[in-house]
């Protein structure tokens, strides 16, 4: 009996979490407490790592989330949206970390590094 209850709870939690990440634009109230928890633990893991003059992305990110940009190189880099930095433009010094706020609108956001235009990647934002 207890095992079944636990299994059911786990399944429900899984559904809620999946629902939360698939439809981030749904009112938070619908997902309830577990939805909120899922969102915040997700953002804690969102990191763009810059290493050896390349971007390593965490995969698709939720709209409006906060992403940490960690620069592991000995020189500075930027995360600059290809619309000349109008959408986002974050500079991160050698060995430092910075914070990037993800756009509110879902879509693909190609970006580059200003000092090194050959460094490119695309930030995928899900609604």
């Amino acid at each position, binding site marked *: 009996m207890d095992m079944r209850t636990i299994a059911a709870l786990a399944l429900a939690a899984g559904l809620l979490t999946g629902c939360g990440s698939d439809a981030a634009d749904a009112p938070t109230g619908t997902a309830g407490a577990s939805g909120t928890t899922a969102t915040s633990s997700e953002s804690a893991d969102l990191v763009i790592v810059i290493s050896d*003059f390349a971007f390593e992305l965490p995969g698709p990110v939720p709209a409006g989330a906060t992403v940490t940009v960690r620069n592991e190189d*000995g*020189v*500075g*880099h*930027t995360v600059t949206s290809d619309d000349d930095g109008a959408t986002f433009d974050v*500079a991160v*010094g*050698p060995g430092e970390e910075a914070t990037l706020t993800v756009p509110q609108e879902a879509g693909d956001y190609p970006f580059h590094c*200003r*000092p*090194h*235009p*050959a*460094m490119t990647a695309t930030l995928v934002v899900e609604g």
Partner: protein
Amino acid sequence: MDDRTKELLVRGVVVLGLAVDAVIHLGVAPAMELAAPDGLGGGFLFRAQATVAGLVAVLLLVTGRRWAYVLAGLVALSALGPVLLYHFVDVPAIGPTPSMYDPLWSPEKVISIVGEALALAFAVVGVRLTSRRAADTVRA
């Protein structure tokens, strides 16, 4: 082609090469400040390179003297040496000089390397030409 015409052509190439070097360093300076913020700062170093290259280009253009060719060659070398060094070697920060490692190619980098290499090579030719001219003057 007489030596005077030859010298003018050589002078033109060196001046042009230094001008390219100056314009590119000036344009890239803000980005270099982001890439190399430590010590003196990449922005300052690139602006200094641009300023010195511009000044020496004008001096050479106006005088066409041997010492101006020597200066022009040294300025071209002062840009060409580091750009190649920092492209291939991850040199750490040394005192006030920040780390300026950049293993990637960019159009700006290629164009400035071509300009600097031309300026250096033709400055050497210019030094030779003006040495001969000086020697001829002494003999005459």
